[in-house]
């Protein structure tokens, strides 16, 4: 095993443990989904078109991150910067939309303090949002380094790990979109 595949494997193990963290939060949400305690239920507070927009933005950013890795492997610094720059903008709009959604819920007094359902909802979705935010910071740092030192082998490897992280976050979001929002609105 060479250095590159060692770090890829190590990072993959981290992603798997992170999956278990999300799994526990999903289990909590699934158990508490109907524990509304007199507060609003999922179908009363979620707007599907809004969530569909969030989903498509995050999905597109996962795609552009992949294209960034292809460009990095081809040694094209300008294209790599462009694709990861686009990924950053999409990721940033996703986080902005999510903060907007949370702020609107809290304003309407549907905060995490209202019921078990809302507590588990905010914990699950905000943990994902926090991961995306940290991914954005990581992306910013890598892009500054890429701009300064150019597309070295190490830079390419780091970008590939970041893209893995980003794809992983999109996979977690598939299940948030399905279990929290679609099933919530369909009253399952």
């Amino acid at each position: 095993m060479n250095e590159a595949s060692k770090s890829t494997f190590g990072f993959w193990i981290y992603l798997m443990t992170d999956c278990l963290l999300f799994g526990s939060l999903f289990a909590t949400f699934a158990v508490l989904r109907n524990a509304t305690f007199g507060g609003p239920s999922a179908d009363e507070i979620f707007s599907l078109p809004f969530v569909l927009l969030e989903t498509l933005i995050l999905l597109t950013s996962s795609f552009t991150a992949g294209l960034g890795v292809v460009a990095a492997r081809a040694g094209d610094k300008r294209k790599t910067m462009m694709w990861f720059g686009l990924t950053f903008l999409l990721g940033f709009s996703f986080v902005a939309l999510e903060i907007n959604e949370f702020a609107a819920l809290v304003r309407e007094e549907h905060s995490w303090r209202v019921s078990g359902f809302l507590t588990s909802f905010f914990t699950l979705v905000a943990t994902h949002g926090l991961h995306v935010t940290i991914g954005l910071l990581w992306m910013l740092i890598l892009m500054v380094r890429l701009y300064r030192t150019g597309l070295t082998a190490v830079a390419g490897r780091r970008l590939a790990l970041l893209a893995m992280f980003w794809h992983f976050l999109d996979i977690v979001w598939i299940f948030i979109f399905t279990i929290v929002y679609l099933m919530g609105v369909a009253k399952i």
Partner: protein
Amino acid sequence: MSEQVTTRTYVAGFILSIILTLTAFKVVDDGLLKGWGLTLTLIAFAVVQLLVQLLFFLHLDKERKPRQNLMAFAFMAMVLLIIVLGSLWIMDNLNYHVMGPEEIIQDEIP
């Protein structure tokens, strides 16, 4: 990951993911399916999209032997299913058995 990964792989994965997302959304929006049928349909769409992204974005199929990433993933998936399904099973069972008689009656008379 190998060298065969190209733009085309990502484009294919992206298009498939978009189709799966929009169809799942449409199924709920139309409201034709209900109950278990809807639950299973939505879970199926999510799992298919998971597989699409594992293959087209994370290239899990292009891994060289001994396929440690795939093994780690399979183990994680097993633990995750035990946590999620086990929690749901135990807590729903508990919920049913600790419900007082008044609540059961309230449940039956709308």
